[in-house]
């Protein structure tokens, strides 16, 4: 996944779309957007930074997990098996991106479950670790229909589909012709906390690459 920091306006539509799609309880935001203020008056900049699970190539959460509930799929998406997870939270302290949540008791926006919340409430998610899945169900369903993740909406994560500024992009980084590979080739980018060796699968674009004369 790619977040273009020049484009993100901090509208939190991706956060709302994620909550709507994944029915996460209050206080749990698998996709969130940080509102950072940098510098000192009068030289101050405001930056909006989408964060969440970085789906690392070397996920520390997976290595520490004692139950093998956390796994990495062949396509790089890091998943959690709610039937295996014991809720020890070791993955949560191992994640340098604060992407994991554990909810021990059912919580609803207004205390009591609204009809929509009651329908989508999943007991399996209580007492276990949860996090962004890159909408893997949606991606898989789209692939089965022959659609292309990142290009066809039905095969693309909800946060990317909902982004009003086209700041978020999703695709296959191993395909040099994919939308994300093209964006990385054309722009200067970085990954967060790279020094930890986690090899995040989430890239931030921050400037255009200079074209050689």
């Amino acid at each position, binding site marked *: 996944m790619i977040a273009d*920091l020049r484009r993100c306006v901090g509208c939190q539509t991706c956060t709302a779309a994620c909550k709507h799609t994944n029915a996460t309880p209050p206080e749990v935001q698998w996709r969130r957007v940080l509102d950072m203020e940098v510098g000192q008056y009068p030289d101050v900049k405001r930056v909006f930074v989408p964060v969440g699970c970085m789906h690392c190539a070397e996920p520390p959460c997976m290595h520490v997990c004692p139950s093998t509930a956390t796994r990495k799929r062949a396509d790089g998406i890091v998943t959690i098996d709610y039937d295996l997870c014991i809720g020890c939270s070791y993955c949560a302290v191992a994640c340098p991106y604060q992407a994991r949540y554990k909810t021990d008791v059912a919580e609803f926006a207004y205390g009591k479950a609204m009809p929509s919340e009651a329908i989508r409430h999943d007991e399996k998610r209580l007492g276990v670790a949860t996090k962004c899945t890159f909408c893997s169900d949606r991606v898989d369903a789209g692939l089965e229909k022959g659609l292309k993740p990142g290009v066809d909406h039905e095969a693309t994560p909800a946060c990317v589909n909902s982004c009003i500024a086209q700041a978020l992009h999703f695709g296959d980084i191993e395909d040099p012709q994919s939308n994300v590979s093209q964006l990385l080739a054309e722009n200067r980018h970085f990954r967060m906390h790279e020094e930890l060796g986690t090899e995040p699968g989430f890239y931030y674009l921050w400037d255009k690459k200079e074209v050689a004369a």
Partner: protein
Amino acid sequence: MSFGPRPWQQTNWDWRAAGNFMLGGTGAGLMIGLALAQNQSAYPVILAALLVAGGLGTVWLEIGRKLRAIHVFFNPQTSWMTRESFAAMLFFIFSSIEIFFHSTAALGAAALAALAFVYCQARILRGAKGIPAWRAPQVVALIVTTSLAEGTGLLMLMNLEVLAVSLFIAAVIARAIAWSGYRAALKQPASRAALESAGKALIQIGTIAPLALVLGAYFVPQAALLAGIAAILTGWWFKYVLVTRAAFNQGFSLEHLPAR
């Protein structure tokens, strides 16, 4: 460059997780001390096993799906938590053999399992990449020596012999050196501040005072009891603070600001 929200204290692990490091560490240290002192009395071995079991019991209270605790054994390939569980299992098996058959070999094996157990505990912290104060390599020596200081302190409380006292002296000095190395490596200001008073207590009340009291025990034997208690309590307090108050994450950071 770091522009993100300031680091904040993790809230995933609380006193229940800390309890495992405190009780389990002391129990493992006691078993190692018993083996080194060739002490085959049943009661200290039972106490060591109870402490380790108590520690595992407190951490069991923390997990979200208690009835699935057996799943903790599923990932010995990479998880130090799984390896800790296997070490604990071996520890209980060999401790039981020692208790019922008074076997010197079983005592030695139990001590090795205890060493593996406390090493795994240290590596659990070291493996938590999200917490700079835990992932420092120096945390391994600190956790292992803290366990030894607490365990030999407890051994000295039960059995005031020259060998036990010698082990205790060596362990508290090793712990002080390990703390010094760890402190030098700890860069995060919030964690340093949180550990400052517990670290001072570790040196002043947990090292200097016990060494003085052990010397005093030459004249008043009961002074050694105070020394052992001081070493145990300061070790426990230190680990409690390390897990619940000094465990700040590193926040978020941006290598570059967006060009506009």
